[in-house]
Each structure stands twice: as C-alpha cells, then as structure tokens.
C-alpha cells in the first residue's frame, strides 16, 4: 500500500524521466543503426556527451559561461537597482503612474533588442555593450512587477503604520517592501529569460568570448556535438534559475499560483 502511494506521488516526474531517456535512446539508435549520420548536419547523444565531458573538464565552457555571467550579473543588478525604485514610485504616486506608465509600457512591449547593433557599434564588443543591452531588456519586468505589487499593498497596513505615528520611511520599509517581495521574485524570473536573450544577441552579434559566442562559433565551424553541449549547459543553468525562482515565488506567495501568464 505504502509502495503504491509512493509510486503515484512520483508518477509524474517518473513518466517525464522515462520519456526524456526514451527519446535519447531513440535518437541514438536511429542514427546508429538506421539513418546514416552526417556529422556536418546532425549529431547524436553519445557524441554530445563526449563533447560535453571534454568541454567541461577542460574548463573551456566554464570560462565562456563565467564571462557571460559577469555581464549578466552587472546588467541584472543594474536592472534591480533602477527598476525597483521606479516601480515603487509609479505604484505609490498616482501622477507618477500617469506620467511614466504609457512611455515605459511602450518600451516594454517593443522588441528593444532591435537596438542591439547600435549598442554594439557604440559601446564596442566588450563588457559595456552587453551590460547595457541586458539592463535594457531586464529592467522592465522589475518595474512592472513592483508597480503591480505596490498597487496590491494592503491599505489597512499603511493606515495602521500612519496611525501609530509611522513616517513615510516606515511605510516604505515596514509595509511596501515586504509585500512587494513576491512580485520582485516574479519579476526576476521573467527578467532572467530576457537577460539571457541580451547575452545571446550581443554575443552572436559581435563578441570574442562568452557562451553565446561559443554556440555560434561551434555552429560556424560545424562542430555540432560541441554546439549541442554548450546549448545544453545554458539550458541547465536557465532551468535551475527559473524553476528555483518559481519555487521561491510559491513559498513567498502561495495564493498567486496559476494566475500568471508565463
């Protein structure tokens, strides 16, 4: 009985794991026995695994990942530092919302990535251009999530703080900040995807190092197993961060589950 209960609890991840492994086997077998493999056009899991091991053990991929991460961290931190205060300001002051909302919404809804070539010729292919692009893409999720969070702040709590003689500062730090925390996490989750877009575009376009550059270089030189290994590594990192933040969101705000578009 206990065994059966355990099984039904883990059924979903189990079926998922089986389907992933099954697909890998199918892919491997199809290209080993049935379809002749053209190494300039396609690859198979065993070759990818070898390339992944080589590239990670030699440290080459880690170096690329570290270089991209540095740009990502700078751009992302700037987005947090700039985005959160703007969001709070817009949410707390009605006129600030009226002034800023149409302009920022227009920017958020536009493919700002179209500015990438200009950024790269202006800032060069180094760190600054990447950071600027990542910041530009990642700042809006913070602004608009914090904005929504402040608007949903409980008025009663604000009144209580005021009644007990709290100052403007107390309202910000004792009421608004704790209640926007889940929204900040939700914003961070969306911003991560957009930040990775920033990395990829700037490194595909003009860079000499970084994970995006590694992917496009392996593609240009027809080293498909290495290319898949790099893509796979980036996928792992992206899944760890987005799923981690999603879990954090559920812990911080269990009531929000299922309401939000992804």
């Amino acid at each position, binding site marked *: 009985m206990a065994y059966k209960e355990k099984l039904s609890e883990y059924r979903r991840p189990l079926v998922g794991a089986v389907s992933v492994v099954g697909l890998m086997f199918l892919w491997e077998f199809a290209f080993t026995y049935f379809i002749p493999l053209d190494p300039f056009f396609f690859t198979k899991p065993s070759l990818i695994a070898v390339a992944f091991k080589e590239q990670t053990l030699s440290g080459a991929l880690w170096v690329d990942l570290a270089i991209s991460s540095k740009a990502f961290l700078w751009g992302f931190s700037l987005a947090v530092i700039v985005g959160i205060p703007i969001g709070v300001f817009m949410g707390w002051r009605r006129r600030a919302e009226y002034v800023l909302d149409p302009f920022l919404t227009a920017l958020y809804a536009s493919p700002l990535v179209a500015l990438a070539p200009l950024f790269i010729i202006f800032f060069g292919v180094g760190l600054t251009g990447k950071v600027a692009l990542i910041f530009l893409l990642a700042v809006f999720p913070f602004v*608009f999530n914090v904005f929504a969070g402040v608007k949903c702040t409980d008025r009663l709590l604000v009144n209580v703080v005021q009644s007990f003689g709290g100052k403007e500062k107390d309202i910000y730090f004792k009421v608004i900040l704790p209640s926007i925390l889940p929204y900040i996490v939700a914003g961070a989750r969306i911003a991560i995807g957009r930040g990775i877009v920033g990395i990829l575009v700037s490194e595909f376009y003009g860079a000499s190092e970084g994970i995006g550059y590694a992917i496009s270089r392996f593609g240009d030189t027809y080293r498909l197993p290495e290319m898949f290994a790099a893509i796979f590594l980036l996928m792992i990192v992206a899944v760890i961060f987005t799923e981690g933040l999603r879990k954090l969101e559920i812990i911080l705000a269990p009531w929000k589950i299922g309401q939000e578009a992804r």
Partner: protein
Amino acid sequence: MNTLASFYREREQAILGGGFILLLILAWQSVPSLISLPKGISLFFTTPVEVVKALYQLVVRNEIQSHVYVSAVEFVVGLGLAILVGLPLGLVTGRSKILDAMLDPFVTAFNATPRLVFLPLLILWLGIGIWSKIMIVFVGAVFPLLINTYEGVKNVDRVLVSVVRSFGASEWQTMKVVVLPNSVPYVIVGLRLAIGRALLGVVVGEFFGASKGLGFMIATAATNYKVDVVFVGVAIFMGISLILTMSVKRFESKLTRWRPEVAKTF
C-alpha cells in the same frame, strides 16, 4: 478657466502620459541645438526629424517595402505555424495526464531557455533564407501559446466538467461546451506573449545571416553608421508591436475583467 481645469481633471491621465512622451521627443530633438556633441557621440546621434526624413526617403526610393514584406511573411507564417501547433498540443496535454507528464520536462526546459540559442543551428540547417527565420519565429512563439492553452484547460471548473459528463457528454462534447470556452482568455494571453516572441525572432533572426528584412536593414545601417535608418527600423518594429499587443490586450481585458490584477508581461 474653470472649464479648462475640469477638462484637465477629466483627462489628466492621458494628458500627463502623452505629454511626457511628447516632451521626451522634443527634448531629444533639441539636444544638438542646446549642446555641441563631441565627434564620437554625434556620429551615433540622430534626431526624430532626421528619422522621419530617412523614413520618407526610404519609402520614396522604394527601398523599405521589400524589407517590410520579407519580415511580415516571416512573422505571419511563423506565428501561424505556432498557433496551428501550440493550441492543439496545449489542449491535448491539458486533457491527458500521461501526455502532460511526458512532455513536461521538454516544455519546462525549452520555456526556461530563450529559443534564440537555436538560431545558429537553424541557420546551419536551413540556410540564410526565409525558412530559418520562420522556424526561429515558430519555436519562439509556440511555447507561450502551448503553455497558456494548457493552463486554461487545467483551470477549467471541475464541477462543470462533471455536470456535462453526467449528462453523457463525450470527450469531444466536453471540449466544445466547457473546456474551449473556458480557455479562451488564457489563449489570448498566450497569443499576446507569442507576438512579442515572434517579433524578437524576426529581429534577431535577420541580424545574422540574412539578406533581406527589417532586421537586416537595421544591422547593415548600424555598420554603416546610418543611425537614422536604424531608428526607422526600430520605430517600425515598435509600432507594429504596440499595435498588435495593445489590440490583443484590449480584447483580453474585456474577457478577463473578473480576474485580479497581475503585472504586465510582454
């Protein structure tokens, strides 16, 4: 005087919002006449009037039409394919537990990673023609559609399903009467997100290894320091994106008036 004040009060939101954008454009226009820009910056600087002039020139010389046409084809075909695949797949995974469990790891992994990582691979496979762009648009747009349709099906009222079931409805009838109408608002959200991803695919896909399209126009103009042409391209993308997402958004808020406010996402 009084009427002016009441006029302002009634339209304060629109006046402040529009006024700020106008003010920014005016400020941008007047920068070169207020301060003399150093050579390193003036090379990268343009003004709104210059951008409008460049647009006029491009249209008159019949240069921009073919770029717009190629980009539009990539966008429409890619997004259309994404709808054709994403909606049915979302419906099916929402209704079938086993398919849901099987596809979940793939959907999670591909959704967390921007599908732009596959751009070099798609160019290698499909060449620099229109199909690599259509595919990058497709893989970008299909996941938001799939996931939101899935959410819509999952969030269907269990009681309603039980009721139609009790009255002897088949799976197809349950789908038609309860599940599909219920998931429409979710699908619309998915569509709005998909439009953004699709445009991203068009822009970036055309930056690399393309010979036509607005993204290509932007990239070549940037390398030739024709900043006004870059901004023409950016402005067109902005305009299209705003018109499409805002009209979907309007439709969406009509359908989901009862839902609590959540943050904007694009």
